[in-house]
């Protein structure tokens, strides 16, 4: 087999190799560690784009690790959806890394670059794996790295939020393992494609257990996606994390959404007996409430970073409204919105940081402060990020929400979905207008403007994120066509199972 056949393992292998090298050179030559970080991110982007180009025609690449044939060994499966998530991760990683390096946030502790690469390894692995236990392992890899990154920079606020974040995720991992144990006991396999075929043969007396396993698994993914009522860990954690890290974490909730999209149609689709679409009836109400709670949080937030954290919850809720339809059109619209909302959430966190860096002791609190230098640029960026997040024209949020509204109109509960999406958009616009006018227009009396920041390069990373959003809007036609094709592929699990399971030893 040629080198090109090894393409699906590279998104996991590159950060796994880069992390220890970055760790080795970190103390003596920090500049070299930065170089390794950027080189690894660029290589991952190149590999992800190559993979996307190879699978965009509809082929499914199954990579059998150690050449063990599919249901027995572990497989990595690269299809349209996985490639899309890989490209998104790589782009987001570049933006977050750029911001961390420019603002020198990576110098506040010794292990930023190794942890960052391990985080990417966990993310890429979770998107690629075709094995349910392997998904758990990659979840743990990305969580362990995220604990370190979240605590990067230290300080009491971060430690407090960190304890809660770690405890919540440990409980989530325990539930994940219980669901896995149940599924393995019932089906005798851990390969997702194989499990999707074997759930049909589960004995009638075990149907109740199967349903429990499906709901447990869905609630673990909902915990990762921060769906109401499992969202309480998110705002404090994300608002306390280093901004560059919080920008990368914008994709962490999407890992939960991705897992739902991947596992529910493949394992708990038609023919799964009592577990067929078991999580589906719970998903739409939870998504509707998440969107409301998230944008209500945007309205009441006391600081820009807290506002960004609530915007992440709200946009995940909007995304899940589309996903909960489980139709090809609505899932395709949801995938387009997923890419958009990840980049928009990251842009909000980064803009909150550039504001905080310019306001001195006032930080990013949503109250009038000094007339700081560089208000114009920061205000423009905040406005662009707010427009993208709430979904006003001309940026991709508008197109994404339009696609979602159009696609859910064909579904039974469309009235609720329309009401919530349009209502939360309105509340979000008011919330962002409120904080924006408090921070950029009003000035407090008797306070000195802090000295101008030593570099204006820190505008680069949020500008890059906004440029990606602009590109996503300009290329909306081809992007949404790709998203629709990816959704169609996810919703036809029989073909993908055939592609994975016929992969023999090479």
């Amino acid at each position, binding site marked *: 087999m040629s080198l090109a056949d090894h393409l699906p393992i590279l998104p996991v292998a590159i950060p796994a190799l880069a992390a220890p090298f970055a760790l080795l050179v970190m103390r003596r030559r920090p500049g070299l560690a930065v170089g390794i970080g950027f080189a690894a991110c660029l290589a991952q982007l190149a590999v992800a784009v190559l993979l996307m180009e190879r699978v965009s025609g509809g082929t499914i690449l199954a990579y059998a690790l150690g050449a063990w044939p599919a249901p027995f060994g572990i497989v990595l499966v690269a299809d349209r959806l996985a490639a899309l998530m890989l490209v998104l991760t790589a782009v987001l990683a570049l933006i977050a890394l750029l911001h961390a390096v420019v603002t020198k946030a990576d110098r506040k502790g010794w292990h930023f670059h190794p942890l960052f690469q391990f985080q990417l390894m966990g993310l890429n692995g979770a998107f690629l794996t075709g094995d349910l236990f392997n998904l758990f392992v990659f979840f743990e890899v990305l969580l362990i790295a995220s604990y370190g990154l979240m605590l990067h920079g230290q300080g009491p606020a971060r*430690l*407090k939020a*960190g*304890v*809660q974040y*770690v*405890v919540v995720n*440990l409980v989530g991992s325990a539930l994940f393992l219980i669901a896995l144990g149940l599924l393995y006991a019932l089906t005798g396999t851990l390969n997702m494609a194989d499990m999707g075929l074997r759930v049909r043969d589960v004995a009638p007396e075990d149907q109740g257990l199967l349903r429990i396993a499906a709901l447990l698994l869905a609630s673990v993914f909902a915990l990762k996606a921060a769906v109401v009522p499992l969202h309480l860990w998110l705002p404090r954690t994300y608002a306390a994390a280093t901004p560059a890290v919080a920008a990368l974490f914008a994709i962490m909730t999407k890992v939960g959404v991705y897992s739902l999209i991947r596992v529910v149609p493949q394992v708990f689709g038609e023919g799964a007996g009592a577990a067929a679409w078991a999580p589906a009836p719970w998903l739409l109400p939870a998504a509707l409430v998440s969107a409301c709670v998230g944008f209500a949080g945007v309205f009441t937030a006391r600081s820009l970073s807290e506002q960004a954290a609530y915007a992440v919850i709200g946009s995940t809720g909007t995304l899940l409204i589309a996903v909960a339809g489980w139709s090809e059109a609505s899932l395709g619209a949801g995938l387009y919105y997923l890419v958009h909302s990840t980049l928009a959430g990251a842009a909000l966190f980064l803009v909150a940081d550039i504001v905080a860096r310019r306001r001195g002791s006032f930080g990013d609190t949503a109250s009038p402060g000094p007339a700081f230098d560089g208000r114009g640029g920061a205000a423009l960026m905040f406005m662009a990020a707010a427009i993208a997040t709430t979904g006003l024209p001309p940026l991709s949020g508008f197109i994404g929400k339009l696609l979602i509204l159009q696609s859910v109109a064909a579904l039974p509960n469309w009235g609720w979905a329309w009401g919530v999406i349009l209502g939360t958009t309105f509340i979000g616009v008011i919330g962002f207008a409120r904080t924006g006018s408090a921070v950029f227009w009003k000035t407090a009396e008797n306070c000195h403007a802090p000295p101008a920041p030593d570099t204006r390069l820190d505008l680069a990373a949020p500008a890059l994120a906004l440029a990606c959003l602009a590109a996503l809007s300009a290329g909306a036609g081809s992007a949404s066509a790709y998203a629709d094709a990816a959704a169609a592929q996810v919703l036809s699990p029989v073909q993908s199972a055939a592609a994975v399971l016929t992969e023999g030893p090479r």
Partner: protein
Amino acid sequence: MSYEFLVASAIGMLVAGGIFLALRARTFQVVLGLTLISYAVNLFLFASGRLVLNRPPIWDKTVSQYSDPLPQALVLTAIVITFGMTAFVVILALRSFLETGSDHVDGDRVPCDAQDGLADGLADAESNEP
């Protein structure tokens, strides 16, 4: 009583104790609760390959009756991960206690609590040393 009943009730007791402790306010009890839950999960995973007695775990062509080896490998992975996680959360809880002066999970100080402020004493004692 059957073997299955014993294992199942042990898992149930561990989960019940774990949930009770994990809902307590102080980090130390929460860590203990998480440890109990992880023990229960490990036992549960082990039992997911069905409980069989006196059978070899590894498949051999001459053996027709064997116990499932895969859950044992899964349990090993789960044990390693939860062990590392528990060590991490202990250190994190200790660090958080020393920096914020409170070992409540929500991180807020509680007035009239004899244990709160203990970390300040520790910090003072440390700062008095040269």
